[in-house]
C-alpha cells in the first residue's frame, strides 16, 4: 500500500468525521436529533484508516422512561389546564355564588322587616334572578367544558391515528433499509420523535422487533402499530352515558372494541378522561345539588304560604328534572323518567345506575362509590323511589338492561327564577299583608341543613371550593414533580444523545488538524515519488 493511498484513506476518514461533526453542530437544537459519532478503525484492506460506522448515540431504556414521564406529565398538564378553568370560575369576587346567595338571603331579611313593602319584594325577585342567572352561567360554562372535552378527545384520536400511521410507514422504510444493510439514522430519529409525540397523547408500550420495526401498544396490550400496519382508534357516543365520547379500537378484522376510560391513564387523552370523570362531573353535581336543594326547599315553603294577593304561593324557582339515559345496548323497551320528591334531603351529588335483572328486579347503585342504594319499587304505578327521586317506569325492561340517572348534572344550567312579580312571594301564612312568618322560614333556609340533610347551602359551596381548590393545587404539585422528573430524564437522555457545541468545536479543530496531517502524508508520499522520478 502506498503512502499516498494511506494518506488518502485518512483524508476520506477526516472528511466523514468533519461532516459528522458539522451535522451534529447544525442539529444541536433539532428536536429528536441524536448525536452521531464517527468510529475510526484500521483499514481492513491493508494499511490506512477507515470509518467503521457513524452511530447514533441512543439509549432505548432511558428513552422509554422519558416517554413514560412525558406521557404522565402531559396527562397532568391537560388536567391542570381544565381544572384551572373551574378554579378561576370559583375565584372569590362580587359575582361569586356565595356572595350572590348572601345577597339573596339579605333581600329576604329586608322583606321580613316589612312584608307589605313591594320594593322589598322586588328586591328579592331581583336578587333571585341575579343568583339564578349566575348559576346558569356557571352551569353552562361547565356544560361547555364537557362538550369541549369531547371534541378534544375527537381531535386527539385523529392525531393518534395520524402518528401511528406515520410510525408504521417508518417501520416499513427502516426494515427495508435494514435488509439492504444501510440503516438511516435520520429515519430512526424521526420514528423516535413520533413515538415521543404519541406519548404526549396516550401512554404506549414500545417493543423493538428483530427486523428493527417498533410494535406500539396501548396499556391493555392492544397494538396501535404492528410492523407495517397501524390500527385506528375511533370515537363514538358512550353506550351508557350519551353525554360522553368514548374511544373505540378497530382491529385488523374490522371489529370494534369500546375502550374503557381507564385504558388511558397517561397522555393528554388520559388527562381529559380523568378530568371529565372526576373533577368536572363532581363540580357539575355539586353546583346542581345547590340549585335543586334551594329550589325544592323554597318552593315547598312557597306552597305552604300565602302571597300578597291572598293566594297560596306558587313555585318560585325551577330546575330541570333528573336526566335518565337508557343504555343503547338495552334490549327491553322500558323508558324511565324521574322527578324530584319533596324529600330533597335524601339527594346526593352523584350519578346513579339503575339495573334490571330478572331475579332482583330493579337495583340502584351510586356511581361515585359503587355502593348500592336502597330503593322502593311500587308495582301499583310502576314507580321506583330512591335518593330523593321518583322514577316512573313505562315499558318492560329485559334482564341486564341498565339506565344512567343524572339527578343534578344539568340542574345548575337550568336553574331559573319563575316570576318577576314580587307580590307572588308567599311571605306570610295568612292574608295579613305584613305577615312575615313564612319569610322568616325562608330566611332560615340560609342556615338550615337543606343540602342532603346534612349541609347548609354555604357549607356545600365551601366544600366545592375546597374540592376544586385542593384538586387544582394537588395537580399543580404533581405536575411540578413530574416536570422535574421529565427534565432530569431529558438531561440524562441528552447527556448521551445530545450535542455539545464545545465538544463539536473541539472535534472540528481536531479533525481539521487531522485532515491537514493526512494531507501532509499525501504530500510526503508525493515528494517521495518525485524523488524517485527525479533520480530516473
Amino acid at each position, binding site marked *: 500500500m502506498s503512502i499516498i493511498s494511506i494518506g488518502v484513506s485518512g483524508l476520506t476518514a477526516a472528511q466523514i468525521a468533519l461532516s459528522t461533526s458539522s451535522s451534529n453542530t447544525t442539529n444541536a437544537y433539532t428536536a429528536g436529533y441524536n448525536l452521531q459519532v464517527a468510529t475510526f478503525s484500521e483499514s481492513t484492506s491493508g494499511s490506512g484508516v477507515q470509518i467503521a460506522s457513524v452511530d447514533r448515540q441512543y439509549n432505548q431504556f432511558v428513552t422509554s422512561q422519558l416517554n413514560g414521564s412525558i406521557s404522565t406529565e402531559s396527562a397532568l398538564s391537560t388536567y391542570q389546564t381544565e381544572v384551572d378553568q373551574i378554579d378561576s370560575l370559583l375565584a372569590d369576587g362580587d359575582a361569586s355564588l356565595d356572595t350572590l346567595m348572601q345577597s339573596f338571603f339579605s333581600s329576604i331579611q329586608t322583606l321580613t322587616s316589612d312584608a307589605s313593602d313591594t320594593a322589598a319584594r322586588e328586591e328579592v325577585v331581583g336578587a333571585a334572578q341575579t343568583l339564578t342567572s349566575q348559576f346558569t352561567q356557571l352551569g353552562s360554562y361547565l356544560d361547555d367544558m364537557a362538550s369541549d372535552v369531547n371534541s378534544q378527545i375527537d381531535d386527539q384520536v385523529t392525531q393518534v391515528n395520524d402518528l401511528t400511521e406515520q410510525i408504521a410507514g417508518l417501520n416499513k422504510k427502516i426494515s427495508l433499509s435494514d435488509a439492504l444493510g444501510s440503516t438511516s439514522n435520520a429515519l430512526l430519529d424521526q420514528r423516535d420523535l413520533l413515538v415521543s409525540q404519541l406519548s404526549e397523547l396516550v401512554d404506549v408500550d414500545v417493543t423493538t422487533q428483530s427486523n428493527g420495526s417498533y410494535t406500539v401498544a396501548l396499556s391493555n396490550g392492544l397494538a396501535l402499530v404492528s410492523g407495517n400496519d397501524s390500527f385506528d382508534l375511533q370515537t363514538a357516543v358512550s353506550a351508557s352515558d350519551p353525554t360522553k365520547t368514548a374511544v373505540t379500537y378497530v382491529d385488523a378484522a374490522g371489529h370494534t372494541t369500546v375502550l374503557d376510560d381507564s385504558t388511558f391513564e397517561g397522555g393528554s387523552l388520559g388527562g381529559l378522561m380523568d378530568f371529565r370523570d372526576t373533577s368536572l362531573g363532581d363540580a357539575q353535581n355539586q353546583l346542581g345539588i345547590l340549585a335543586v336543594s334551594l329550589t325544592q326547599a323554597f318552593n315547598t315553603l312557597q306552597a305552604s304560604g300565602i302571597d300578597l294577593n291572598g293566594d297560596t304561593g306558587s313555585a318560585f324557582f325551577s330546575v330541570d328534572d333528573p336526566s335518565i339515559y337508557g343504555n343503547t345496548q338495552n334490549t327491553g323497551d322500558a323508558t324511565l323518567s324521574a322527578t324530584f320528591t319533596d324529600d330533597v334531603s335524601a339527594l346526593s351529588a352523584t350519578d346513579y345506575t339503575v339495573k334490571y335483572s330478572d331475579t332482583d328486579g330493579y337495583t340502584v347503585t351510586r356511581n361515585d362509590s359503587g355502593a348500592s342504594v336502597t330503593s322502593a319499587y311500587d308495582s301499583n304505578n310502576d314507580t321506583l323511589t330512591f335518593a330523593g327521586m321518583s322514577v316512573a317506569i313505562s315499558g318492560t325492561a329485559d334482564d341486564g338492561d341498565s339506565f344512567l340517572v343524572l339527578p343534578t348534572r344539568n340542574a345548575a344550567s337550568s336553574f331559573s327564577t319563575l316570576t318577576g312579580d314580587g307580590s307572588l312571594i308567599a311571605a306570610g301564612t295568612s292574608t295579613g299583608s305584613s305577615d312575615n312568618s313564612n319569610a322568616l322560614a325562608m330566611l332560615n333556609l340560609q342556615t338550615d341543613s337543606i343540602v342532603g340533610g346534612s349541609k347548609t347551602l354555604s357549607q356545600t359551596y365551601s366544600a366545592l371550593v375546597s374540592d376544586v381548590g385542593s384538586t387544582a393545587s394537588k395537580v399543580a404539585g404533581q405536575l411540578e414533580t413530574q416536570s422535574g422528573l421529565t427534565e432530569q430524564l431529558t438531561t440524562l437522555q441528552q447527556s448521551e444523545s445530545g450535542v455539545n457545541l464545545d465538544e463539536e*468545536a473541539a472535534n472540528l479543530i481536531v479533525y481539521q488538524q487531522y485532515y491537514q496531517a493526512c494531507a501532509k502524508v499525501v504530500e510526503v508520499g508525493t515528494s517521495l515519488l518525485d524523488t524517485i522520478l527525479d533520480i530516473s
Partner: protein
Amino acid sequence: MRLSSATIYNQSLNSMLAQESAYQDAAQEVSSGTRVVNPSDDSLAAAQAVNVRQAIAANTQYADSRSAITTSLSQEESTLDSINDAITSAKALIVQANNGTLSDADRESIATSLQGVYDTLVTLANATDSNGNYLFSGYQSQSPAFAADANGDLVYQGDDNAIKQQVSSTQSMASGDTGATIFLSVSSSAGFIAEAGDNSGSVTFSGPTITDTQDANYGTGFSLTFSTAADGTAQYSLDGATPVAYTSGDSLEVNGLSLTLSGAPVDGDSITVSKAADADPDLFASLKNLISVLQTPVETDADQANLSNTLSTASRQLSNAQDNVLTVQTSVGSRLNQLEVLDTIGDDLALSYTERLSGLVDADYTESVTEYTALQVALQAAQQTFVSLQKMSLFEYI
C-alpha cells in the same frame, strides 16, 4: 456529567421562566393585597373563607333586623308615652267629675274634654310608620287598628300576630305589639271590676277590695241581682242563689272580695263583679260609656247612682288600662335593652369575623413584600446567568 448545549439552554431558560412566573405571582399578591383569590391558592383557607363570609353576611343581616326593630320599637315607645299621658289626663278628668258639686253643664264640659282625650287615643292607636303601615294592626298593617262600626263603637281591625324578626342566630323578637295587647287587655296583676247593670234604683257600690286571697273561690267573680221580697223590702240573690235581705250600707264578703253597697235598689237591678281580664277590657268602650254618662243630666237618684257607679268603674278600668300600657312599655324598653346588648355582641362578632377572614385570605405585607424583593433579585440573577451562559462557547475562540 456530559451536558448537551440544548440542555444548558433549556435549563437556564426554564429556570428564568419559573422565576418570572413566581415573580408575577408575588407582584400580584403585593398589588392586590390578597393571598387567596383562586381556591387553588389555598383550598383550606378559601373554603373556610366561604363559611366566614357567610357568617359575616348573616351577622350583618341580624344587625339590619335589629336596626329596623329598634326604629319600630322606638316609635312604639314614644306612642305609648303619649297614650299613657292621655290616660293620665282622662283619669284626672274622672277625679274632677267625681266632685259632687258639679252641675250638669260642668260635667258636659268634662265630657267634652274626655272626648278630646278619646280622639287623641284613637289617633295614637291608628299611628303609622314611615312606610304607611299601621303600627298596631299586627299582620293587617294596611288597615287601621281601630275603626268605628255602624254604632260608632270602635272595633279592632288587626289580628293577634305581632310581627317578629330574627335578631340573632338563635333569637327572634317582636318588632311591635298589637292594638289588642295595648287597648283590649289588662296586665296579669289587674284586680277586680264591679259594674252596675242598667239599673233603675239608686244602689251604689264601693270596692271591690281584696280581703282574702286564700279564699277557696278567690279569683272568680260574682253577680248580685236585686229583687223585692214578699214583705216589700229589698233583697239580693248571689249568683242566682236564694235571696238574702238587703240593708243599705251592707258590706258583702264573697270569694275573698269585699263590696260595700248603699242606696235603694229596685227589682231587677244588678251588680256584676268580675276579674278585670274577664270583663272584656276595652279602653275605648270604657271612655265612650263614661262620656255618654257624663253627658246625661242628673235628675233622679238613679241618675246619680248611675253616674257614681260609672265613674267608679271607669276609674278602675282606666287604672288597669294605664297599668297595661306601662307593662307593654316595660316590655318594649326591655326589648330595646336586649337589642343594645345584641348589637354589642354582633359588633364584636363582626370584628372577630373580619379579622379571621383577613387572616385567611389577606396578604401579609411584610412577608409578601420581602418575597417580592427576593424574587426580583432571583429573576435578575437568572437573566444574567442566561446571558453569560450563552456567551460561553468554544466557537468564540476559533
